[in-house]
């Protein structure tokens, strides 16, 4: 039977699994249970295109036989299935090799507080309300400019869920969260062809979601300005990343700072802790307890309390992103950054990760460039995490004498991430949280642009 959130007490399911694992001989274990429901509405050209509704639940078990460990997940919570599930996971753990570093966090390390973090809004939207919001956003996009001739549609999603984590040291924690999002993707056309862009809002609180009109208008502004794009000349120029794409530079930083990449030798930031990796006006935080944040949670994927910490302080690398295992491999304590997919062993990743804004208005950053590139979109996967080598497809605008002169596309930008972080020239004053990772406008002194 499908169940509403909160209707079923999954904490007892979690504790039952721990008991069964112990009976089967496991020396330690933890269980994560997630359940949730989602309603997704997509409209296109003024009509409903797709409705998706679902409830789901899943549990993940990680267990240890001494220092052998395995993880497994299932969506089948029936008693018989769970008994077999525990048996199979035990067999799996006994088949792998002992890993001297493996294990749960120490009993005293787990979170004991459960602060109010404003990450759950119990607003229940009706299907018709979500359809209306998505239609309004798309309508606003069309109304904003006559060059919008087609649309990939508008989408309004709502979801809510609950996470329960329990381990054999006696930790039991749970929290609920919610998410509301609205987006629209208009298509503009002229004699030269079509361009598409999109804009979106996402928030844990429905009341804080931007209006459909604001989202639709911004989507259109971003789309029509791309019409008439051409290639740019090949050469070395200053490059400005708008906040959306500047966030990707922080994502790459997170990947390089993950304890797992570091101990495997797969990061270009190995051995850089305590070193200057960026100019002294660059400070970056990871804050797992930012109220209402999309990356906010009271405890991490192993039950350790989250916190706010400086990752880069005045340009100096002050922290990696670690869970218990990767921390031990590096001889460091966990930073409370265990990320967990149900049924996987933990990895390490950011919570709310952001760069402290500068004081320069974005238009003043533009004004500082005589010839250069303003990047609004990046595509492709041309990043080598081991070396930091960076080469991606880009589009945006050519800057001439401090102003956006014309749109450009079918170009690449290339450099090395280490070099890019250390040659950040200016940070904008325009930090807005629109995801777990947020950045203001960033100007990099020089990159190689390949075009004509």
């Amino acid at each position, binding site marked *: 039977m*499908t169940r509403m959130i909160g209707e079923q007490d999954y904490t007892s399911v979690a504790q039952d699994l721990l008991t069964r694992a112990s009976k089967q001989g496991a020396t330690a274990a933890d269980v994560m249970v997630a359940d949730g429901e989602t309603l997704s509405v997509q409209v*296109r050209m003024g*009509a*409903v*295109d*797709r*409705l*998706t*509704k*679902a409830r*789901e639940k899943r549990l993940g078990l990680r267990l240890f036989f001494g220092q052998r460990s*395995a*993880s*497994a*997940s*299932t*969506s089948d919570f029936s008693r018989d299935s769970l008994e077999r599930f525990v048996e199979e*996971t035990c067999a*799996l753990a006994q*088949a*792998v*090799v002992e*890993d001297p570093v493996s294990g749960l966090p120490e009993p005293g390390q787990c979170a004991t507080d459960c602060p109010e973090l404003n990450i759950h809004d119990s607003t229940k939207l009706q299907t018709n309300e979500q359809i209306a919001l998505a239609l309004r956003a798309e309508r606003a996009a069309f109304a904003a400019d006559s060059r919008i001739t*087609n649309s*990939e549609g508008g989408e309004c999603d709502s979801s809510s869920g609950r996470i329960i984590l329990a381990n054999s040291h006696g930790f039991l924690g749970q929290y609920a969260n919610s998410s509301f999002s609205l987006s629209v993707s208009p*298509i503009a056309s002229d004699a030269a*062809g*079509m*361009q*598409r862009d999109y804009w979106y809002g996402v928030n844990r609180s429905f009341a804080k979601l931007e209006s459909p009109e604001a989202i639709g208008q911004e989507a259109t502004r971003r789309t029509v300005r791309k019409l008439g*794009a051409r*290639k740019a000349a*090949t*050469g*070395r120029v200053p490059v400005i990343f708008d906040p959306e794409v500047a966030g990707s530079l922080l994502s790459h930083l997170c990947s390089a700072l993950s304890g797992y990449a570091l101990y*495997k*030798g*797969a990061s270009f930031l190995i051995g850089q802790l305590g070193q200057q990796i960026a100019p002294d006006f660059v400070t970056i935080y990871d804050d797992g307890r930012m109220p209402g944040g999309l990356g906010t949670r009271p405890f991490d994927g192993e039950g350790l309390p989250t916190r706010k910490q400086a990752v880069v302080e005045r340009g100096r690398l002050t922290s990696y992103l670690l869970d218990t295992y990767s921390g031990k491999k590096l001889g460091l304590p966990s930073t409370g950054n265990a990320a967990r997919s149900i*049924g*996987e*062993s933990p990895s390490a990743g950011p919570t709310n990760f952001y760069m402290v804004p500068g004081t320069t208005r974005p238009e003043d950053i533009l004004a500082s460039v005589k010839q250069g590139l303003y990047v609004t979109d990046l*595509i*492709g*996967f*041309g990043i080598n995490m*081991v070396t930091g*080598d960076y*080469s*991606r*497809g880009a589009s945006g605008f050519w800057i001439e004498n401090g102003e956006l002169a014309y749109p450009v*596309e*079918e*170009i*690449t*930008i*290339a*450099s090395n991430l280490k070099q890019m972080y250390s040659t950040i020239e200016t940070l904008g004053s325009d930090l807005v949280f629109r995801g777990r990772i947020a950045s203001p406008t960033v100007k990099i002194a020089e990159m*190689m642009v*390949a*075009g004509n």
Partner: protein
Amino acid sequence: MSKDESGALARFGVTDREIEQALGRVKVSAVDYADLYFEYCQSESVSMEEGIVKRATKSVGQGVGVRATAGEKTGFAYSDELTAKDLNIAADTARYIANSAQGTSPLPVSHRPALARNLYPHDRANIEVATRDRVTLLNAIDAEARRYDPRIKNVMAAYNTEYKVMLVATSDGLMVGDIQPLARLQVTCIAEENGNRQVGTFGGGGRIGLDYFQNDQRYLHFAREAAREAILNLSAVDAPAGVMPVVLGGGWPGILLHEAIGHGLEADFNRKKTSAFSNLMGKKVASDVCTIVDDGTLPFRRGSLNVDDEGTPTSRTVLIEKGILRGYITDKLNARLMGIPVTGNGRRESYQSVVLPRMTNTFMLAGESDPQDIVRSVKKGLYAVSFGGGQVDITNGKFVFSASEAYLIEDGKITRPVKGATLIGSGPDILKQVSMVGHDLKLDEGIGTCGKEGQSVPVGVGLPTIRIDEITVGGTKA
């Protein structure tokens, strides 16, 4: 009813009658088409790093997705519980788009006879490999890569398998089941010399079992190839930047076709006229030497399927014939709305996702040129033989794909290895730049995963050696 179907039905614990009732409930007159997709999927992964096999994971999931389409609308619901009650709730949710009361009479479905072909006959024991056999294989890979060169400092390898049972019942009155095994072995090596660290990767697989990797000790070949690429990259120089001729090697570089034209020919984008290829049917979009197909019927291939996720047998679809755009990749919804044939490309990641038109194995047919002549024809350019991922903007047609193993061509000779670089071009134009096609068509090793609307599905690509006269290479060297 075939053996697979009866096994599948027993697995899901649902009766024919319950399926027919749920279908009848959702397929009212205002609904054009409806289907129920049952899925059981078990995936297992064993991975090694630092010389020890320290991680093993297993995931089991099952559920049903119920879908109704009416005009351009799709209603969709899914459940991880498979009782008659859950089926009916999902059917009612999916029917919401039709805005009408539930159907009351069951919709009869007939079982399709066993498929005339099985593209990936399997022995379950060979698919569900014992963990200790995986461990043995991974340990040997570690030893082989380190033996290849002492500069190899770390080896990471993973052996992943998936065993998927699907059963789809459609309002066309059809019920088809399939068992779809999938395996992949991936090796990553890190080489280090004087503080210079480089990475190399190699992997492969398909709808195959353990014996595939054991035959001719193929797993050791994977280890050596990953090690070779890492060592090679130790001496790589900066890649050039700008427009130049590029020679692509055979196999995985076929990702060019997947990004540059494949996505642009998926029917949904063309029905909505949001693709750069909209309105180009019958027009010249490539040079005469280019013929490109999508073929889901190749035995044991990663992108192959006996039937797609709507129960349609997969087929071979000619997309581009001697440079002329000939066909789209379709599912039932888009084929119906566009009045074009169903090609058996309706795919979904799982019961939790809707069907979209997706590629299977996409490749260019062999030409007549000698691959060595193709390299010799280039005075100054790039020879790229291995790639990481790629991406495309469907609407303006701009695509990228990133080389992970590439060399300079100087005066017709392959000279120094260069660092990875992204190549960027425009889908409707790039294949007009193909001036030579080799006789050496090669399919990839079986590592591709394609993402669309957040759904990942396994795919294959293939390419002979080709010459592209002009494409932008995103290196750092002017």
